[in-house]
């Protein structure tokens, strides 16, 4: 199938907050009016958002595009630290600037008929647009989604609307199977026989899914998070170790061929 190619040109766009609502405890949905980026962004790409204009915290924050609706970008975000706390304070009408679209998103190889999307926690964020594009292209989509509890199964709307099948696992059993999403993946790889696996979530989980897909001889792509300063390939803060050497998550990723990733200790430590 032919999908539009990723744009080469990065834009600096001044955008307006159209909505910023709480989705569940600690998770928000930010809707930005960003016509130039909305037009060209591809699934799995991200934007680098300037949240503070003071000097208190100087770095931008990277966020995947969850969905695009006309000229609006939807961003699902988790409130973790300084930046996301400040982001949660943004009100309708406020302006920010972003750089985007950035990075190398999900790749949909020719001939894919059935895709398994594996999302752990906020790993659902970069997968909304992917599910939409796949289903629009006639690919059957199965989603395996895990979270600590039912509330945290974010992004359900788009998955329910696009996927043929959505399976869930929660740590506390409040919805779906109790336990880890990897148990679902194990059985779905057998029952659904996907041609491809897309995964995003905590690195230990992504690593297991990578191994599961490899064992089932199914190609797998993974979206990785790294600390990013520039977001555009210049500073080398975001490197991922791969079989082909060190790659920059911001331009060579964030989506990588999972088999090429050398899992090391460069992941971002989880927060309490």
């Amino acid at each position, binding site marked *: 199938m032919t999908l539009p190619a990723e744009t080469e*040109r*990065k*834009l*600096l766009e001044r955008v307006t907050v159209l909505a910023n609502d709480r989705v569940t405890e600690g998770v928000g949905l930010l809707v930005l009016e960003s016509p130039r980026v909305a037009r060209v962004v591809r699934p799995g790409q991200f934007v680098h958002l*300037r949240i503070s204009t003071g*000097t*208190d*915290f*100087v*770095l*931008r924050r990277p966020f995947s595009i969850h969905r695009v609706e006309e000229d609006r970008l939807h961003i699902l975000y988790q409130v973790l630290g*300084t930046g996301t706390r400040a982001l949660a304070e943004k009100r309708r009408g406020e302006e920010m600037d972003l*750089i985007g679209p950035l990075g190398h998103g999900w790749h949909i190889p020719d001939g894919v008929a059935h895709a398994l999307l594996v999302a752990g926690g906020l790993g659902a964020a970069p997968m909304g647009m992917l599910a939409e594009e796949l289903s629009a292209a006639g690919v059957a989509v199965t989603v395996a989604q895990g979270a600590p509890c039912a509330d945290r199964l974010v992004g359900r709307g788009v998955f329910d609307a696009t996927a043929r099948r959505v399976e869930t696992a929660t740590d506390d059993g409040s919805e779906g199977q109790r336990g880890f999403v990897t148990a679902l993946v194990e059985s779905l790889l057998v029952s659904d026989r996907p041609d491809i696996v897309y995964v995003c979530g905590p690195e230990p989980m992504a690593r297991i899914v990578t191994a599961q897909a490899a064992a089932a001889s199914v190609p797998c792509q993974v979206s990785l998070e*790294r*600390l990013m*300063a*520039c*977001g*555009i*390939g*210049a*500073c*080398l*803060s975001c*490197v991922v170790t791969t079989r082909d050497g*060190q790659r920059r998550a911001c*331009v060579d990723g964030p989506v990588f061929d999972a088999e090429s990733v050398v899992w*090391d*200790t*460069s992941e*971002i*430590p989880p*927060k*309490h």
Partner: protein
Amino acid sequence: MDSSKGINVDMRVRIGALELRNPVMTASGTFASGKEYADFVDLSRLGAVVTKGVSMKPWAGNASPRIAETASGMLNSIGLQNPGVEAFCAKDLPWLATQDVPVIVNVSGHSLAEYVAVAERLDSESAVDALEVNISCPNVDEGGMAFGTDCTSAADVTRAVRAVTSKTLIVKLSPNVTDVTEIARAVEAEGADAVSLINTLLGMAIDTDTWKPKLARSVGGLSGPAIKPVAVRMVWQVASAVSIPVVGMGGIMNAEDAVEFMLAGATAVAVGTANFVDPGATMRVVDGLEQYCRLRGLDRVSAMTGAVSR
């Protein structure tokens, strides 16, 4: 320049044999070789591009995490990851040569011999206008900062590189020293055409959740607005200690910050961390400097150099 907006401002400054169209450079390591910024910056409007540090052999750099955000700043421990001078000459230089901007290559080494080898290799490259010898990188185990924290070794590197290059030679100084003027004088005496400062301050941050250093390498270099007062002070001290030009940097976010460095004694300035915040930061500094001069009735930007009252 629109004459209705007032006087024309001569924005040119001179660093060694190099005439820059304005005093605004990029700080090494924050701009790669410029290609990544081409969507945001008209390179031909920069005073100069200063490249990421280049060594003789490829360097892998340090383990990740390599950055940590701090109050008004950031730590980095990139560790001079680079593909080596041959790859640089093959890939980056040809592109830079087409950009109509002076090119200053930041030279790294693990040893005196490596500095010399890189400088020698670059001497024949006509696309290279000047070298900035980085004797102040806090992120490598051997070499780097060790050369820049001691007068004798700083002088040794300068002398050795001077002997093999005919290009304008800038030596980049470390702020992690008791007396920066002493080092500046030592490199001036060995033939440096200019000094640039400051490189990053050695710093550390610890994750109170994991009890681990935030950087895999434990320590790294602090940059950004947090360090500006230290940088301005050192530029001020060095500018009155040497007679070669000073390139000032450390926390420059806007034109006003650049003015502060020039008043302190800088002939030119470099913009580093600000590129991450705003990829077009250098353009805003160039325009803002010109605007500032115009508003103050200055017909040349260089009139500000060292003009702070005592």
